């Protein structure tokens, strides 16, 4: 059963023509969310708390996907012209068949425009990294088996222990090469987000900043998922881990030291 803010299929009310900002959080332990909002687009402006610097319009019928731990800020624009002041309610669905909220439209709204990509550009949280300037690269293989601790999970063969630490360079650009042995996992790193490439709503490749992303089944050492980070200003110890919580709890986590 999927809940929103602890409630079963809550009802969300929008005034006609109004724009509402939703800060979506996938706080599930292990479920990928594929969200659609009936006849309306999800106008995405930020991922994992970082402004994209544009508006990514996920049209009605095209799901916005959030892995466990992902966040997404979307703008929802209620229809302005409803016959007899009545627009039919719509559903927020997951995986097409699961209604997780209902949205109703009431009269009396003050019609509002959506921001343009030009208006969002100055808000972009991080400038893109020049990926030709990679100083070091680190591999991370997510494993459910063949770990140094029997029956536990691990990264690069080592089940989490706080004393096995990978050192990362401060103020240099580092590339992560990420892959899995045989199942989907979700890379999540603390303190510093990363730049990566995703498939945008128009089907094209898009450079975005995230701190949580899928490392899919089928990725390999030769065909890894890639992420770039420049570690600025904050030396010290942190971790990265799989954001599928039963995996993290079973040791699919690794300590890093930025210095």
């Amino acid at each position, binding site marked *: *059963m999927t809940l929103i803010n602890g409630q079963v299929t809550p009802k969300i009310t929008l005034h006609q023509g109004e724009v*509402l*900002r939703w*800060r979506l959080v996938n706080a599930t332990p292990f479920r990928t969310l594929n969200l659609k909002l009936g006849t309306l687009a999800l106008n995405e402006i930020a991922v994992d708390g970082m402004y994209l610097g544009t508006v990514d319009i996920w049209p009605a019928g095209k799901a916005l996907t959030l892995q466990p731990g992902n966040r997404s800020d979307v703008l929802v624009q209620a229809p302005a012209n409803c016959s007899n002041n009545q627009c039919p309610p719509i559903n927020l669905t997951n995986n097409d068949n699961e209604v997780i909220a209902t949205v109703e439209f009431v009269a009396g709204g003050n019609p509002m425009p959506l921001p343009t990509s030009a208006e969002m550009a100055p808000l972009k*949280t991080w400038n893109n990294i020049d990926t030709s300037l990679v100083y070091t690269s680190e591999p991370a293989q997510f494993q459910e088996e063949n770990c140094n601790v029997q029956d536990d999970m691990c990264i690069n063969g080592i089940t989490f222990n706080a004393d096995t630490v990978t050192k990362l360079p401060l103020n240099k650009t580092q590339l992560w090469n990420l892959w899995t042995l045989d199942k989907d996992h979700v890379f999540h790193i603390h303190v510093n987000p990363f730049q990566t490439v995703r498939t945008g709503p128009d089907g094209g490749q898009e450079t975005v900043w995230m701190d949580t992303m899928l490392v899919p089944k089928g990725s390999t050492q030769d065909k890894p998922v890639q992420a770039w980070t420049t570690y600025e200003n904050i030396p010290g110890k942190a971790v990265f881990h799989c954001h599928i919580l039963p995996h993290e709890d079973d040791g699919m986590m690794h300590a890093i030291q930025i210095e």
Partner: protein
Amino acid sequence: MEGTLIVDDDPAQLPDALKVKENILVVQYVPIQATTSTVDEKITVPSIRSAASGNGKTANR
């Protein structure tokens, strides 16, 4: 760099089109089935507030 991950919007910096009301929608999952006898499906989502009041925060990490 830590802390800037969590958006802490300054309303003065936002374009007018982003000065809108917002919901934080935390999607959770529990491995049980709902029964209509134990839930009120007509509750309105709480915590609608104006971004103009500032300090809109995106979630945990």
